[in-house]
């Protein structure tokens, strides 16, 4: 059922309270429901976002100005899935090198994640050479609020309470006893056996930091809350013209023949040799005739004979051409962190967040190396021609297009020295508090995070059922 007043909910029947109704929180509640386990989901926003509600998500950036955090995420039922792009794929195997779990720990939840996202469980890859793969994304159109609102309304196992802001958690002796929230301007304390934070890649850290301030008896040893915050650099790197048939001939039967954009990714070997992070290349090969004409015109200026050849290829429908965008892996840095700005409080008297984030120097180096190597592959194998932005070539600056993936801050790890939660997402030193979402990522690869967020939530649900004997 969906509620707006806390008095209408029977809190005694659920052993779990989940804070946040985005992909992390709802996927967890939906999987618990399959196991016939009751849960209460507390959402800070309403059924839809509004300007006043979004103001609560204001953040300050103290080093580099990133995309406004009150725009990049949504405070509403379904969370940021209300405006996400839907790009979905599991992380690469080597993305887990520094995680306490590996890809085999998440693979069992791939199919269920695809069902939640209404996508095909098909993520093919083709080996291009020792440095690159052609890879496949699936594009989800799921908005969690639209897909699951009616389902939750009728559910016997999920109770959803809207417009209820979690302020902080309180407890002692390594146990959370209650959560202090505000519902209809009234401060309330909610008790439960287990508490799950699934409030997003900034809010999870914010709640834990404020909890640490308010409750002196818990989280004292957890020094890493807010640290190692990360985001993907999404940049425009250049443009390219590729012969589809030549790429097809090179990859034989392994060519991933799908319409629209073409994706490539770097291999671990490449990152190791060049000492750079991983990256995904996205060629936005939309069938926009104007763009094709412009690209060929540009090529005719620098290489007239080749330009004519590519113009013939366009006529023969053998040409994919478009801007090349890149998602670049961030390097975890302890100094990139979320802290609380106690001088600026929101309407609930809760400090807003300060995000101290400096872009790693490695990002521009990665962009140049990847573009350069990809251009050389296309040129030497006569697959096409690539042009790189001058500023990247000269290692001057990158054309950043926005930061929408918020990761880290409550990272997963073996111990308190370098992490906040353990491999089962339980907060170190607290017996009944878990964290779900991308804030637990120790490293972030180049892949969009939502698919992995959902896999982790389903894994957490299994852990709760099997280990905690719910």
């Amino acid at each position, binding site marked *: 059922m969906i509620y707006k007043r806390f008095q209408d909910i029977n809190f005694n029947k659920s052993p779990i309270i989940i804070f946040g109704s985005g992909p992390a929180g709802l996927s967890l509640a939906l999987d618990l429901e399959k196991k016939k386990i009751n849960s209460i989901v507390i959402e800070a926003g309403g059924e839809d976002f509004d300007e006043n509600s979004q103001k609560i998500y204001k953040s300050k950036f103290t080093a580099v100005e990133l995309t406004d955090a009150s725009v990049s995420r949504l405070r509403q039922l379904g969370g940021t899935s209300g405006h996400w792009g839907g790009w979905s794929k599991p992380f690469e195997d080597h993305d887990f090198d520094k995680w306490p779990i590996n890809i085999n720990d998440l693979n069992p939840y791939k199919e269920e994640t695809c069902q939640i996202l209404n996508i095909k469980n098909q993520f093919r890859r083709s080996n291009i050479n020792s440095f690159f793969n052609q890879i496949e994304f699936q594009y989800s159109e799921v908005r969690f609020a639209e897909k699951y609102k009616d389902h939750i309304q009728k559910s016997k196992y999920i109770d959803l309470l809207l417009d209820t802001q979690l302020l902080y958690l309180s407890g002692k002796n390594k146990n959370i006893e209650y959560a202090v929230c505000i519902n209809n301007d009234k401060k309330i304390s909610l008790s439960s056996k287990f508490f799950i934070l699934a409030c997003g890649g900034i809010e999870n850290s914010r709640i834990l930091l404020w909890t640490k301030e308010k409750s002196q008896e818990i989280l004292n040893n957890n020094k890493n809350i807010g640290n190692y915050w990360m985001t993907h650099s999404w940049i425009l790197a*250049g*443009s390219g013209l590729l012969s589809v048939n030549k790429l097809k001939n090179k990859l034989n039967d392994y060519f991933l023949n799908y319409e629209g954009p073409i994706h490539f990714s770097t291999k671990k070997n490449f990152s190791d040799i060049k000492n750079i992070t991983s990256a995904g290349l996205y060629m936005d090969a939309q069938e926009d005739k104007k763009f094709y004409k412009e690209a060929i015109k*540009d*090529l005719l*200026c*620098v*290489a007239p*004979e*080749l330009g004519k050849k590519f113009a013939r290829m366009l006529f023969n429908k053998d040409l994919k051409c478009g801007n090349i965008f890149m998602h670049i892996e961030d390097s975890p840095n302890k100094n990139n962190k979320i802290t609380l700005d106690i001088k600026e409080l929101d309407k609930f008297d809760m400090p807003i967040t300060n995000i101290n984030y400096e872009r790693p120097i490695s990002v521009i180096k990665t962009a140049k190396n990847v573009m*350069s190597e990809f*251009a*050389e592959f*296309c*040129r*030497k194998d006569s697959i096409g*021609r*690539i*042009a*790189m*932005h*001058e*500023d990247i*070539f000269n290692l001057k600056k990158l054309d950043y297009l926005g930061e929408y993936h918020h990761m880290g801050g409550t990272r997963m790890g073996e111990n308190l020295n370098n992490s906040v939660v353990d491999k089962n997402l339980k907060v170190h030193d607290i017996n009944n508090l878990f964290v779900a979402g991308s804030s637990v990522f120790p490293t972030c690869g180049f892949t969009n995070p939502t698919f992995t967020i959902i896999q982790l939530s389903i894994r957490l649900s299994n852990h709760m059922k099997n280990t905690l004997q719910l």
Partner: protein
Amino acid sequence: MTKSILIRRNFLKNFTKIFIFLSIINILFNKNNKNNLKLIKNKKLIWYLNEND
């Protein structure tokens, strides 16, 4: 066979061998030349091209 004919024949044999060798080198050299990287800047873009593009 006179000595002068033998000398001429050897010379021709060697000349042919050298000619074939140099031709192969030339072909390979030219091919490599064609595949050499040429960077050209146009409208803030650096194009990765072949020398004979």
